[in-house]
């Protein structure tokens, strides 16, 4: 429904968005995830019409938006700092967009009342933005966009200004609202857990390009390159040459095996990626000695539900393991300075070719 084709935007000599293509489907919750400065906000502003692209097209329902000024685009944007009009009260802020459409007084009043009920702001209509809490202002900003019934709602870091607890709750409210209204949401965020929770699909951005577009599970379990693996969550990487059988890798720590066949020439440099929570720590070497390396515990970070183990392994590099503190482990506890064995299943590892 929303299609971006070969879009580029340069600021002076820096390419903020670099020949980027993307499809967002009707009714989808799409997240653009990337580190700050990767161009994700610029992409949003290009779609909203605040920036003009140097090259490429943006199509909405097949219509090129290039010639459409921001005030005629059926797209609305929720700003990071909400951009509520300080001189208008909550009601007037929400009604602002409808007044521009020239609707009748009654219809405006009805739609504003409906949307305020939807975001639970009924009693705040007469308040000015500065008299509201952060969470309330966030909801006014959201309501102000939703009331316009946009084809696509763009959200620029919508939760960044909220404190953690409120953020967690609001994520689920946002998802429920999106599903209920059947709207298309495009959210920009630098917070990977936020993107994983809310989005149907995630586009991971780096330096103006989309590196991978896939579902949250796909992105986490099967990242398509080292950069994505490292940016989304934690990862242990082992560099090595691909063996002749296509599933084993000769690395400095020995032969490692993965379950799926690796799409590369034998002898090519590849990387084996293992998430810390998929690493097992044992005092004795595992019986089959597959995908296993000896190491020393350097330190342990206790997080309550999990503990993060930093380990020094035989080839001199570092490794991370995350173990749930379930309380029914039969093993004796692991302490710093201890010699341990680390292992993982072939199914738990992913091979990356770049």
């Amino acid at each position: 429904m929303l299609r971006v084709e070969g879009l580029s935007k340069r600021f002076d000599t820096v390419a903020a968005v670099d020949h980027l293509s993307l499809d967002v489907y009707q009714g989808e919750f799409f997240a653009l995830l990337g580190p700050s400065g990767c161009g994700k906000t610029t992409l949003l502003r290009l779609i909203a019409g605040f920036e003009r692209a140097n090259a490429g097209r943006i199509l909405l329902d097949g219509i090129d938006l290039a010639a459409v000024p921001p005030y005629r685009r059926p797209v609305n944007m929720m700003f990071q700092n909400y951009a509520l009009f300080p001189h208008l009260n909550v009601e007037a802020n929400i009604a602002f967009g409808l007044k521009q459409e020239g609707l009748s007084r009654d219809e405006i009043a009805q739609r504003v009342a409906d949307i305020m009920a939807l975001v639970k702001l009924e009693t705040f209509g007469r308040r000015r933005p500065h008299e509201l809490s952060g969470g309330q202002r966030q909801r006014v900003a959201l309501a102000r966009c939703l009331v316009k019934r946009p084809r696509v709602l763009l959200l620029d870091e919508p939760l960044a200004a909220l404190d953690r607890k409120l953020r967690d709750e609001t994520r689920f409210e946002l998802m429920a609202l999106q599903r209920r209204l059947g709207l298309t949401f495009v959210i920009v965020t630098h917070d990977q857990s936020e993107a994983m929770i809310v989005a149907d699909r995630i586009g991971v951005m780096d330096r103006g390009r989309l590196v991978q577009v896939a579902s949250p599970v796909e992105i986490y379990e099967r990242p398509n390159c080292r950069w994505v693996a490292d940016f989304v969550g934690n990862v242990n990487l082992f560099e090595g040459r691909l063996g002749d059988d296509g599933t084993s890798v000769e690395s400095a720590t020995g032969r490692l095996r993965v379950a799926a066949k690796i799409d590369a020439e034998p002898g090519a440099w590849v990387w084996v990626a293992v998430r810390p929570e998929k690493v097992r720590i044992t005092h004795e070497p595992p019986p089959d000695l597959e995908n296993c390396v000896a190491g020393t515990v350097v330190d342990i970070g206790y997080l309550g539900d999990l503990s993060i183990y930093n380990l020094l392994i035989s080839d001199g590099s570092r490794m991370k393991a995350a173990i749930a503190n379930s309380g029914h482990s039969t093993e004796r506890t692991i302490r710093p300075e201890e010699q341990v064995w680390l292992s993982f299943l072939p199914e738990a590892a992913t091979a990356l070719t770049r």
Partner: protein
Amino acid sequence: MRKLSAFNLMALLLGFAFLYLPIVILVIYSFNASSLVAVWGGWSTHWYAELAKDAPLIDAAFISIRLALVSATAATILGTCAAVALTRYGRFHGRSLLGAMIYASLVLPDIITGLSLLLVFVAFSIDRGFWTVAVAHTTLAMCFVAVVVQARLIDFDMELEEAAMDLGATPLRTFVAVTLPLILPAVAAGWLLAFALSLDDLVIASFTTGPGATTLPIRIYSAVRLGVKPEMNAVCSIMVGVVGIAVIAASLLAKFNPARRKRAQF
């Protein structure tokens, strides 16, 4: 809570004493009954009564007020446009030149501004009078307005205007419904500043005026350049009063500033 050190407090007290004592002394002397300025002859409103009989002076005062109203209004419109152009339209051809002209006319000695404007009027054989002074004052004052309004425009987030457009408001509607209400205090303050500048100016008016358009400062100047005149104390005290009230009104207006309240939250 921070506290003022003795040094800071001293600096403020002495500074404000230096700024205000001369004006206070002037006002006190305007009530001096003695015709010798230096000798205190008791309280009296004698000089104010004298003033009321001085028809040319009163004429000049009315001319000055009319002039200030006209040029302040024109300067506010032009200056606000210039401020919007400088802060909101990104880079356009000649933007630096516009900025340069504004800052140059802010600081350029008024004697040069006056002379050059006069020479333009002569070169195009325009008869000098009320309207030439009005044009001159508008030119100077619009630059002050531009700077004041520009400061407010920089102050508030451009996102607000983008949000308005995102919600379907055309650029014109955005200006009327969002920008203007938010910069209104600065625009009003700019108008008052322009009014005060026009009422104040001697040099530019001297160059650009013509017959029948003698402004109050010109009349005061020709009276005092030969020495202190007691009735001038009274004129000046009245002007202090008028300007004082106007400025207090302006600062109350500036306090009513929704944009600042919004900012305070972040």
